[in-house]
């Protein structure tokens, strides 16, 4: 279990919460000061598989940046929204495909899966929630949706086939993808902070985002983006971790806090009873 403990240590400080009144799965929430700085890490590629994944990500990113006019120094809110909405629609695919493929594999090999299916499905739902948080700010029209559909068609099929053949490669790919995501969100935060995006500097967070991330009443959009970036960093670490495992180990267990939404909890002080974690 020592390698499992190492994974938890690399993640930003968070608590897993579950709202039994909501159909959402358990997901992490954060104390804002813990996630103010998230390191933009990079896992050095070690073998051909890693290098292949990394180079593919770099090529895809460069072309995407070129086509969308990405500029680290200054971009408009409209450009940012287009970018994040598009990317989050793509981000929701790998977790679901991975979970589904593992589920089917478990059914036909009759071997248990040790919790990874659920973990990957949670990741997919988490990314989909990111998408809907951003959709509160921008409602794309039909041309954008067509591009999303086309990208999904291509990516889903490629990823599914790759996952059947080489799941470790896929997780490494997602790990590197999330590294880029953390980097991009860090750039976004920097642009908000240095005044390039005045509309977003003090924009309040939407109700849905506040509830999802258990944020205080006066939370801003910046706080939401901090949380989203922290989520991406967790996915980054988990996906790299899965690839590194020599022998598949069970998912590490974490305490799950039950929140009672009826009395809209603002900070951790209002949470429901603590559930003691089990030691496996």
């Amino acid at each position, binding site marked *: 279990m020592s390698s499992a403990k190492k994974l938890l240590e690399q993640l930003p400080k968070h608590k897993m919460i*579950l709202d*039994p*009144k909501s*159909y*959402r*799965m*358990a997901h992490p929430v954060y104390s804002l000061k813990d996630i103010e700085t998230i390191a933009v890490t990079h896992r050095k590629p070690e073998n051909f598989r890693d290098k292949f994944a990394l180079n593919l990500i770099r090529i895809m990113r460069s072309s995407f940046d070129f086509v969308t006019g990405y500029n680290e120094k200054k971009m408009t809110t409209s450009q940012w929204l287009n970018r994040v*909405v598009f990317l989050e*629609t793509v981000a*929701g*695919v790998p977790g*679901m*495909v991975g*979970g*589904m493929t593992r*589920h*089917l594999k*478990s*059914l*036909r*090999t*009759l071997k*248990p899966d040790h*919790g990874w*299916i*659920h*973990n990957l*499905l949670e990741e*997919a*739902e988490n990314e*989909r929630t990111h*998408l*809907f948080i951003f*959709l509160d700010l921008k*409602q*794309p029209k039909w041309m954008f*949706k067509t591009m*999303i*559909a086309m990208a*999904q068609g291509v990516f*889903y099929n490629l990823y599914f086939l790759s996952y059947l053949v080489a799941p470790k490669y896929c997780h490494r790919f997602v790990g590197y993808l999330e590294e880029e995501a953390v980097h991009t969100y860090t750039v976004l935060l920097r642009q908000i902070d240095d005044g390039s995006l005045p509309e977003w500097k003090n924009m309040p967070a939407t109700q849905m985002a506040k509830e999802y991330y258990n944020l205080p009443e006066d939370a801003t959009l910046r706080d939401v983006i901090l949380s989203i970036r922290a989520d991406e960093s967790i996915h980054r670490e988990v996906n790299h971790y899965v690839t590194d495992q020599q022998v598949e180990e069970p*998912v590490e*267990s974490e305490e*799950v806090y*039950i929140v*009672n939404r009826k*009395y809209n*909890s603002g900070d951790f*002080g*209002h949470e*429901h*009873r603590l*559930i003691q*974690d*089990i030691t496996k």
Partner: protein
Amino acid sequence: MVIDPKRHLMAHPIYQLGDIQDIKQTHRQTDGIRDKMALYSVRGIRRVFDMLTGYNQDRMSERLWLNRVIFLETIAGVPGMCGGMTIHLKSLRSLKPDRGMIHYLLEEAENERTHLFLFMNFKKPNSLFKLLIAMTQGVFWNFYFLCYLMSPKFCHRLVGYLEEEAVYTYTILLKQIDQGFLPELEKSDAPKIAKEYYDLPEDAKFRDMVLAIRADESIHREFNHYFAELRPEEEIEELDITVMGQETKNITQTD
């Protein structure tokens, strides 16, 4: 519906054994050609399957029963996951929320997979069996996925009728246990994970586990028929979820 925060499983139903002794075998009348296609597919495949596996309603051996339920539960785990994934992808590209249907289907898939592992406590299939399972999964997955892209309603109706057959078959199994034809299984205790999963009493037997499994299938039956009839603008009913190991506690703002 309970959820156990200590385990990674999703919310699932548990029962009082007294409530599930009798589960009605219902049949939803077909309403249009789509329903008829679904019903005839299920009935047709069932006939062929029964013939190939030597199904006998009056009396069957334990070995045949275990083969049957294990095989069928490997197939049962497919539709929920396939449906859940397809709706997830659709929600991502249409940018519309999904009204909570995804999680029901994923829960259903996980529930069926749990049934599989519960039955696996009683029999470990060999390589030939696994090969058959793999081949069937390959065919069924692709068929179901394509159908779901074209007509989710047809698929839910199909699963609804499939689960009707499942409830029927489990009722026959229970009848055969009660008639004493399956002494080994009748004597067996329910495995520990079954007792934990379904919150069964300590002295629960195989029969009690089958009662709970049958009740799960009846829930899937009702929900899939419900999903087949759902209009696009309707909201989906949410079931109350209790957290295991917790009494409900009201928190006031001043806590």
